[in-house]
């Protein structure tokens, strides 16, 4: 029975990875850039949620939404200021810029408020719920529900709305998308907005779940979400979701076996294995082409 609890914990952690991984994968899909500043947007999201809850005294859901909106704006600003002018630059130049933006966000945050920890107030009911005879924390369940709703929303946006179709078109063939009358710049901005909003949501969820946040908290989850995105096949949205969940469960299982010190290593071993065995990821893009 304890296994089921561990599995639920794993899925909760995994859903946070998945939310961050979605931003990585969407941005990569559309401009082929690994946005290493993405983990820091997640951190900003956690702090925005924290301030909303403690200063403005709002609940979990309003904090989540405020954080998503502000992170979307931050994401667009990062794209417009740092990445837009590098569209035709080499990929390594853009990558280095992304790392630079990451450091800039982290240390600006430390400069203004110090590196100290902040403790999230209890915003989610923390009781044990009986699910089929297994006690599971209500927090885990709530987080899972919020994540699932966000993912369904994302699938809806990407597949059913005009901007979602434009995003897919641009990621498949930017010039052909231009010929349809699609404004490629705005579509890229929208992609950053959506990805960053999801990272912001992940930040608030992380804070509510683990309670402790600090300015460098985005580094490791950011890297792991990147691994999740690669695991699922970078550029592939369902892949990022599955990759995140798999990674979360694997980590929890490794901890449950008593190897908690190996937890982080497990993630990177997965990265190495996937790069050796199937570099295109579990759901690697199979662009069917016929000439």
């Amino acid at each position, binding site marked *: 029975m304890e296994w089921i609890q561990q599995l639920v914990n794993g899925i909760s952690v995994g859903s946070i990875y998945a939310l961050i991984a979605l931003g990585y994968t969407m941005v990569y899909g559309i401009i082929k850039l690994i946005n290493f500043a993405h983990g820091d947007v997640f951190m900003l999201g956690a702090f925005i949620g924290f301030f909303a809850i403690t200063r403005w005294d709002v609940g979990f859901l309003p904090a989540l939404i405020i954080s998503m909106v502000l992170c979307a704006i931050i994401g667009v600003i990062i794209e417009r200021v740092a990445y837009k002018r590098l569209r035709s630059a080499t990929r390594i130049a853009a990558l280095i810029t992304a790392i630079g933006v990451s450091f800039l966000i982290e240390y600006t945050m430390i400069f203004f408020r110090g590196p100290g920890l902040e403790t999230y107030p209890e915003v989610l009911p923390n009781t044990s719920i009986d699910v089929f005879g297994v006690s599971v924390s209500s927090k885990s369940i709530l987080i899972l529900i919020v994540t699932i709703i966000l993912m369904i929303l994302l699938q809806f946006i990407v597949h059913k709305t005009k901007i979602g179709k434009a995003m897919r078109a641009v990621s498949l063939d930017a010039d052909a998308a*231009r010929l349809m009358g699609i404004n490629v710049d705005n579509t890229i901005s929208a992609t950053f907005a959506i990805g960053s909003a999801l990272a912001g949501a992940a930040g608030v969820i992380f804070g509510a779940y683990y309670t402790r946040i600090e300015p460098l908290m985005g580094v490791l989850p950011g890297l792991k979400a990147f691994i999740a995105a690669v695991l699922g096949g970078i550029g592939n949205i369902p892949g990022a979701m599955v990759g995140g969940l798999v990674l979360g469960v694997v980590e929890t299982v490794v901890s449950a076996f008593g190897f908690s010190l190996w937890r982080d290593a497990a993630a990177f071993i997965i990265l190495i294995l996937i790069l050796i065995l199937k570099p295109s990821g579990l759901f690697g893009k199979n662009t069917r082409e016929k000439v």
Partner: protein
Amino acid sequence: MLKVNNIDVFYGNIHALKDVSIEVNESEIVTLIGANGAGKSTLLKTLSGLLKPKSGTISYLSQQINGKQAQAIVKSGISHVPEGRRVFSNMTVEENLELGAYLRKDRDGIKKDIANVYDLFPILGERRKQQSGTLSGGEQQMLAMGRALMAKPKLLLLDEPSMGLAPLIVKQIFEIIQMVNQQGTTVLLVEQNANMALSIADRAYVIETGKIVLSGTAKELQESEQVKAAYLGAL
């Protein structure tokens, strides 16, 4: 309708179009023929706003469009079917057509026009839910043309629709080009298959290494010794 005046276009250091001037009148089929690398596709890309001319002007319906963004040009009624079809391979046939109507807001009209495209190309209707990357070359060409028509263009730019297709399919595609033209769309057709292109065109231009070297009615060019030798093969 379309007037290109003395444009020069560069790809980096390569002078791809040199002092090119052409004209397309309303309801004509005009063809631009030339060998690989002569600058045909470059000209179309410049017309649709993917490339910017370094000098010269392009006027369309007495408005200057050189230097305008691609989406503004699509909005003004020029649709470009690019070389190699460039359909969105991971999306369905129907999604591709919907994207063709990206700038339109009339939902009912879009639905009607999708039905029209399926009338024009029945095979696309049969495959509406299929991913477009799985279509054959000819079907992809039809989809690319259908997608361009979804924008309700006044001027249709076609870049080598015959490329890599079996002669029978080419014939079918050219019949449809004529049909589209008869329904009121002006066509600028770029081709290597000079025979086919001249057989349906009203007027034609011949381009060689970035320069227009010949122009005239399609009939004149079909009979020109120079064109016969270089493009129509020994007949």
